[in-house]
């Protein structure tokens, strides 16, 4: 389980950004890709531990789960994957190795109280 080190990275980044913005960070919003290799529940659990004794203690982690989006070369269109186990177009069946979204883990926004 590497979610604790991931949570520590999120807390570090959120603290840096929070200091730059000014005010108390009360919520941290992240986009979690289905192919990011990070598990939602383990991340939620680790987040509270990572926040302890920091300025983020008591803040909420808001996770927006992002499905895998691929490009289908036959349809010339982006398709949302039904499952990360099956990288093919659900409309025409073409294999779709080109991933457009759903791989990353991104800090997207902070909720700040003045």
């Amino acid at each position, binding site marked *: 389980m590497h979610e604790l080190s991931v949570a520590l990275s999120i807390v570090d980044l959120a603290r840096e*950004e929070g200091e730059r913005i000014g005010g108390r960070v009360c919520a941290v919003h992240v986009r979690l890709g289905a192919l990011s290799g990070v598990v939602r529940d383990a991340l939620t659990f680790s987040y509270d531990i990572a926040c302890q004794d920091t300025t983020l203690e008591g803040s909420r982690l808001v996770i927006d789960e992002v499905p895998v989006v691929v490009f289908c070369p036959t349809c010339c269109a982006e398709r949302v994957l039904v499952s990360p186990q099956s990288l093919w177009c659900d409309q025409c069946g073409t294999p779709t190795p080109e991933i457009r979204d759903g791989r990353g883990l991104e*800090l997207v926004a902070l909720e700040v109280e003045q």
Partner: protein
Amino acid sequence: MTAAPRLVEVRQNVFKHNDLLARTLRERFRSAGVFVLSLVSSPGAGKTALLERTLTELGTRYRVAALVGDLATDNDAARLARSGAAVRQITTGTVCHLDAAMVDSALAGWDLGTLDFLFIENVGNLVCPASYDLGEGLRCVMMSVTEGEDKPLKYPTIFNSADIAVITKIDLAAAVEFNRAAADRSIQSVRPGMETLAVSAKTGAGMPEFLRFLEARRMDSRAAGVP
């Protein structure tokens, strides 16, 4: 009265520190002319056995070295050092994966310009290593015939993050009734187009193809200026 919290957009990759360092490492490897292959698999799939044979056989023609990650013990490094290659152990303690910083510090004092191939053996784990770029030129995911043909479907993230799949212990394939076609279907389902090789580090079956693959990819990357 307290004002309602305001939502401020920030947009930061959570792995940015690792990714930036990995990019620096990749540039170092490129300018030193060393081709770097990382190996990931579950514990016991045969990373060390494949690497031992690879270092021994490639070592007759190339300058080879390895970094080997483990939670504890330097048994694997000692095993690999028997090949005559330069080997360094990275002991991660309780950390279940290697990251770019661990690779960077393990390389301290090494003259990469004296190497043709550098292998990085990750900690045996099919989950956590997927998230960490190590600056490698190529990531090799391995599965042994004893693990079941659907392994890629159970761990799609790591298989998707790899550049080549190697099926190991094929000398045991008949005994465990391994179905190669089913394994290929699983691999292609999570990573369409990925090249797959099959080897036995014990009998040497498939080793010439694996070594030829490594040499060809090294030549390609040198031609492209990206070892």
